[in-house]
């Protein structure tokens, strides 16, 4: 299943708006959807939440100027189109007309300005301020046109606007609730907020929604159920119609259930092992290559994910913009041993791997310990609790103080763009505590590619630069490239139109329940 090339619609996309309206209508939905989710929400203010689940909840009620469709293609939502200047320092958006927020306030350029002024103002202490830090100021050109002036060129601006944190809140509500808007959200979306208590969110149909014949559902409830087995039981007992994540090990248990469908979709989470190049012997390219040859990626998928994991073919996953597939690293333990001998490590060496304490992390580390052990690399496994992991890896102030040797985890670019999939991980200036280059990898050519691709809005130029960066990174192997996760969820056969997008978010706007 392969990537549909992302298209940025420059120019009018009225055709898309028309297509949405032309969907066949069903009998008015009087049905209620219950979704089983793994954790509690942390808030409903899009500018202040950073977990995918809370963002999905926000998507029920709020929308941004642009957004993503179910394949992570950029689509206009509250805006119709945009134009940018040549240097990618000014972006002008034409807004849709006739839309209002749930509390009656009109959606217009002034509302957009109010939202972006709010999120870019450090005095508001919102978690997502720095995501929009490139914005110098926002201008209301006329009630349906808004212009963003940036401090410096930023080619990835529209995907950033499409990020869930760019969703629009009613300015009236912002005034009214201040900080507490997190539990009183008001947007333009298909559903209106009803209540949020501890682990249950309830929203109800927005009768005045601006897209005709939507939504089909009467209400949606998110219930958080942390235990995988219990969440699956909810689905089996008919208490929920959609649950995620679906643990791959349990798929066999429901394969033959006639009422349940398993959804197996690609994600944009790339799984990796970062090697700290400042620690012996990871500075030696041959060692890094050897480790890539030493790990059987197919076995990794089978053992750790019960088969539900795709091989990685680039430092970024296929559904990110500007992805280019590279030559896979084959499983060749003999070659690995040979390379290690050439590097003077014929007797192997001792090392340590860190990760958090989730089941997947524990399994991955055990698997890697065994695989690397087979070529003479003796790995000690240490699972660290979140806070401890933070203090030992991401909060470390100076590279020399880092005790990290190997780290395994996953990364997803929440903007769907190659920039955020590469720069925080491989840019020389991205070492902790600033960003996430935990291996302190540094490569001038890669830096030049990444910086250059940010400085232009021209997709062709960006594509060329990112293609070069990916090739260099793949060959230089600062990571063991383990694989790309699948998004696994399970649902009742009666449910249609609910989509999980590759970044793990949920699109529920078009969902419907058949009798």
């Amino acid at each position, binding site marked *: 299943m392969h990537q549909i090339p992302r298209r940025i619609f420059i120019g009018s996309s009225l055709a898309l708006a028309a297509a949405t309206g032309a969907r066949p209508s069903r009998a008015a939905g009087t049905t209620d959807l219950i979704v089983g989710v793994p954790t509690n929400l942390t808030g409903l203010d899009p500018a202040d939440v950073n977990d995918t689940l809370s963002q999905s909840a926000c998507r029920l009620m709020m929308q941004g100027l642009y957004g993503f469709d179910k394949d992570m293609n950029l689509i206009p939502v509250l805006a119709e189109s945009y134009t940018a200047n040549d240097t990618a320092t000014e972006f002008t958006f034409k807004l849709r007309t006739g839309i209002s927020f749930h509390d009656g306030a009109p959606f217009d350029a002034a509302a957009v300005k109010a939202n972006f002024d709010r999120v870019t103002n450090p005095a508001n202490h919102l978690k997502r301020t720095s995501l929009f830090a490139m914005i110098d100021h926002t201008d209301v050109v006329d009630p349906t046109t808004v212009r963003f002036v940036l401090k410096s060129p930023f080619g990835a601006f529209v995907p950033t606007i499409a990020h869930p944190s760019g969703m629009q809140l009613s300015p009236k509500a912002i005034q009214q609730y201040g900080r507490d808007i997190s539990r009183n959200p008001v947007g333009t979306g298909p559903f209106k907020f009803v209540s949020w208590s501890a682990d249950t969110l309830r929203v109800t149909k927005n009768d005045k929604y601006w897209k005709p014949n939507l939504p089909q559902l009467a209400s949606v409830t998110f219930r958080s159920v942390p235990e995988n087995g219990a969440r699956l039981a909810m689905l089996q*007992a008919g208490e929920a119609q959609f649950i995620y994540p679906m643990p791959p090990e349990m798929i066999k248990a429901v394969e033959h259930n006639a009422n349940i469908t398993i959804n197996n979709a690609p994600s944009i989470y790339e799984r990796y092992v970062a090697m700290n190049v400042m620690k012996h012997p990871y500075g030696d390219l041959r060692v890094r290559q050897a480790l890539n040859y030493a790990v059987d990626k197919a076995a990794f998928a089978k053992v750790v994910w019960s088969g539900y994991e795709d091989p990685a073919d680039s430092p970024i996953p296929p559904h990110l913009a500007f992805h280019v597939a590279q030559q896979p690293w084959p499983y060749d333990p003999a070659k690995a041993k040979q390379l290690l001998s050439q590097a003077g490590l014929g007797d192997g060496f001792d090392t340590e791997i860190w990760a958090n304490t989730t089941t997947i992390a524990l399994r991955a580390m055990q698997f890697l310990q065994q695989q690397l052990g087979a070529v003479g690399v003796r790995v000690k496994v240490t699972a660290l609790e979140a806070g401890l992991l933070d203090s030992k890896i991401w909060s470390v102030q100076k590279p020399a103080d880092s005790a990290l040797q190997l780290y395994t985890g996953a990364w997803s670019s929440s903007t769907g763009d190659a920039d955020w999939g590469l720069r925080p991980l491989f840019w020389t200036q991205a070492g902790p505590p600033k960003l996430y280059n935990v291996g302190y990898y540094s490569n001038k050519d890669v830096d030049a590619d990444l910086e250059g691709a940010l400085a232009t809005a021209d997709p062709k130029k960006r594509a060329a630069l990112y293609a070069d960066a990916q090739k260099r990174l793949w060959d230089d192997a600062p990571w063991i490239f383990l694989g790309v996760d699948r998004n696994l969820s399970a649902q009742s056969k009666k449910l249609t139109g609910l989509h999980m997008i590759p970044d793990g978010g949920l699109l529920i706007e078009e969902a419907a329940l058949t009798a």
Partner: protein
Amino acid sequence: MLGYFLRRLAGTIPVLIAVSILVFGFVRLLPGDPARLVAGPDASEADVQAVRQDLGLDRPIYWQYAHYVGEIFQGNLGRSSRTRLPVSYEIGQRFMPTLWLTLAAMGWAILAGMGIGVLSGVRRGRWEDQGGMVVAVSGLSFPPFWLGLLLIDLFSVRLGWFPTGGYESPASIVLPSFTLGLAVAAVLARFTRSAFVEVASEDYVRTARAKGLPERRVIWTHTLRNALIPVITMTGLQFGFLLGGAVVVETVFAWPGLGRLLVDSISYRDYPVIQAEILLFSLEFILINLAVDLLYAVVNPEIRLR
């Protein structure tokens, strides 16, 4: 008695102050930066710094403590680092579910546990005794999440008698309170039986029997009072533990309780929530222990509490 009671109540204040200082220091000893944990998995340094300022963690430690104590005196427990919602709101949402679960579990435990304990104690040495204790203690020996998942599979998925979890309807308390209550029942059964057996051969019981008093009266009047001491102790302890929330049961049954809140808060180093919850638990235990000590005196006036 009244004097003792008032003195004990007054004595809670230094304890609470001690706890507040201890927990304040304790959470800051835990490695890990709350600002970064709250800012999220792909936050930039600027984001983290913004969060740190918002949480007041960039201020010197004495400022933080003064701020914390000052807020408590105003009845304000602060805001959760993670959700920025008032801590009193977060705890308030979960207090009643935890209380209901505790009461229901204690209900099962007292009925089943003390029931088996009395039966075993009275029929000491016979098969009811040995069998009863094995049954009781089995309940304690199961890993709770395993039992919980099995119960959900049987009663919710297959039979459809009870919901799989959550806090929606009165029926949803049955399975979690049963799972929780089983473990407590075993403890109570043990202590009840132990107490009965202990005391059954005391002098005054033999004397009463020798005087020809009916067996039943002997048991219920003479044995019971002293038998109750360790049973009361244990019941109080268990009640206190349960009020602290039962993390595993809450997790398996998706019960919105204080236990889960505390575990999540520890993971995220959500200082205000951790501090407030531990103060709350401390207060609960103090009150329960006070009640237990008073019950000692009521049950056996010979015990002099100084």
